[in-house]
């Protein structure tokens, strides 16, 4: 982890806090006016919800993930962040699944527009490396222009990010292949690594340094820093999945007319789960509704999915009729077109789409099949972001 982004004046770049001090961190953020969002246990899964104290966090759980399955087990070591990522991602907060974007009211033959309230300032506690990469992918989509999404921009500017370096990888994780994790590299205010009784904290911004100044801490020893690195390296070494990313966009282009899409199309239910759990998927629809009197209209933005048949409805009929064509759209977009559109791949290797696919379709396996069909590129490599 480079220390160049830290502010050496306010605090040393690597510091140690006691685990219970995390509560002070949450309190300090709340005093600063942030609503803190962190991992909690809900309906047998780890999800991100508003938290107000340390007790709210899901303590002592490990997730067991496989293609099409997710299960939680007790963690003997009682760690705070031994699980990896759950069905939800932070996109639910920066780019909510349902959001009113404006209201309009008829009044004396005129129509008056109303902007929605300013979104709250959020602090994310527990952003994994792959998720941080996903946020940066969505930044490119919503902020790079020519147009900018104002609601996303407002939420994004205000957010405080406490990253967590994974010390354990899941069975569907492949961030190492995608070059996104498990080491957290940039774009956070604070980054935590969970040790035995403490967290190693790395400061990534002025905001982060200012907050840490209010909180009891001490300088980290060389040994503690080395131990943190060892733990994250161990996670990197235990990735459940890999994906060869060599010339992926070219592979996708070569595969456009592959019979393999038909084969996946037979398994895929077009349930759209993969797009909903994916932290980079950004498609939405706009719905216009009125109240009963017809005097007030609201435009609502809702997550949509390229797996829905109505998605391509043009001049009275859908264009991607077969499920095969919709799966092809999804995968060739993620691993191909995305690079032309936004300069990065649309997959960060979090593995959610594998875990939450009800029939266990695994994109790493599909890519491997396509590679066998269309010839392997010579040098196995990972993309650099």
């Amino acid at each position, binding site marked *: 982890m480079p220390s160049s982004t830290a502010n050496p004046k306010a605090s040393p770049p690597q510091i140690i806090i006691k685990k219970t001090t995390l509560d002070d961190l949450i309190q300090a953020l709340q005093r600063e006016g942030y609503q803190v969002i962190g991992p909690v246990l809900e309906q047998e899964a780890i999800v991100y919800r508003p938290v107000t104290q340390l007790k709210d966090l899901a303590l002592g759980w490990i997730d067991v993930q496989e293609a099409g399955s997710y299960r939680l087990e007790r963690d003997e070591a009682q760690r705070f962040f031994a699980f990896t990522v759950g069905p939800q991602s932070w996109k639910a907060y920066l780019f909510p699944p349902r959001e009113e974007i404006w209201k309009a009211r008829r009044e004396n033959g005129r129509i008056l527009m109303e902007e929605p309230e300013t979104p709250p300032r959020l602090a994310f506690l527990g952003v994994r490396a792959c998720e941080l990469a996903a946020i940066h992918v969505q930044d490119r989509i919503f902020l790079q222009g020519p147009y900018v999404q104002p609601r996303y921009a407002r939420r994004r500017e205000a957010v405080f990010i406490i990253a967590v370096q994974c010390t354990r990888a899941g069975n569907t994780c492949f961030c190492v292949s995608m070059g996104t994790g498990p080491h957290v590299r940039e774009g956070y205010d604070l980054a935590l690594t969970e040790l035995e009784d403490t967290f190693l904290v790395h400061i990534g911004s002025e905001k982060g340094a200012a907050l840490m100044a209010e909180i009891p801490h001490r300088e980290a020893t060389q040994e503690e820093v080395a131990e943190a690195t060892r733990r994250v390296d161990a996670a990197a070494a235990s990735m459940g999945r890999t994906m060869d990313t060599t010339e992926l966009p070219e592979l996708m282009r070569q595969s456009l007319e592959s019979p393999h899409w038909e084969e996946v199309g037979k398994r895929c239910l077009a349930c759209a789960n993969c797009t909903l759990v994916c932290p980079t998927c950004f498609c939405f629809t706009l719905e216009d509704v009125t109240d009963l009197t017809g005097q007030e209209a609201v435009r609502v933005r809702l997550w949509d999915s*390229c797996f829905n048949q109505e998605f391509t409805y043009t*001049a009275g009929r859908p264009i991607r009729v077969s499920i095969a064509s919709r799966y092809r759209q999804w995968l060739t977009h993620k691993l191909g077109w995305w690079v032309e559109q936004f300069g990065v791949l649309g997959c960060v290797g979090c593995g959610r789409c594998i875990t939450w696919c009800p029939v266990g379709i695994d994109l790493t396996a599909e890519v491997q099949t396509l590679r066998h069909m269309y010839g392997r590129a010579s040098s196995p490599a990972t993309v650099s972001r």
Partner: protein
Amino acid sequence: MNHSPVPHPALSMPTQGTFPLFFRVVRRQRETPDTYTLWLEPPAGTPFAFQPGQFNMLYVFGVGEVPISISGPAHDPIPVVHTIRAVGAVTRALVNLKPGDLVGVRGPFGTSWPLEQAQGKDVVIVAGGIGLAPLRPALYHLLHHREAYNQVVLLYGARTPRDLLYRRELERWRGRFDMEVLVTVDRGPREWRGHVGVVTTLFDLAEPFFQPANTVALVCGPEIMMRYTARELLRRGVPEEHIYVSLERNMKCGQGFCGHCQFGPLFICKDGAVFPYPQVAHLMTLREV
């Protein structure tokens, strides 16, 4: 000649965001049994300008929003002219609006026809059905700056004579000595004395009026018609990179965010709707893209 699509004009219009501005319908005219033209007046003091080939998102209060190309002259952009075919709930609501009603407008969005690059060349415009609407601003431009262009040829095909858009205007244009207008229908009643057949069958008649190697072609219509037209233009020697097409896809945002309009790597709303043919040819032959 520069073959990349014309870039977006400056994003300076108050209508180019996520909030519609309400324009007033000042005139409505029936074109065909299911197609109407609306003239929309912006609120006092609101500027509006566009490039031929661009579109607006039109919103009917509480009903919904759809992309509709602008079909009036760019040199005289206000009131804003839209020709709309009723195919769904929103377009039906739009064609039923009356003078005095309000329409939400966002835009203009998208790329435009390469009219600057076409200067000094023959310009062949090939339109199918409602595809004439996004091409009409290009025609207005060519005729307004007539001396800047060589031959101007319009080939227009509709399903039946009743489906011909802008019939009076077509007749007027056909009477001009400085342009060629050829019209065909897929099916004609017995009284129809004009040409019958798909639009590509007009090329034999149009042959004397343009020099393929020095021609820029602007094409808009159903995708299959554009494919056959491009093939015919290529066969006659029009350079591939001088052919432009305007594509249609489902659109929700018009700004490259919602993902609906994707066509391979392209967002039709911001990378198009007007594309140089070589940029999209390989995708147009794939099914269900």
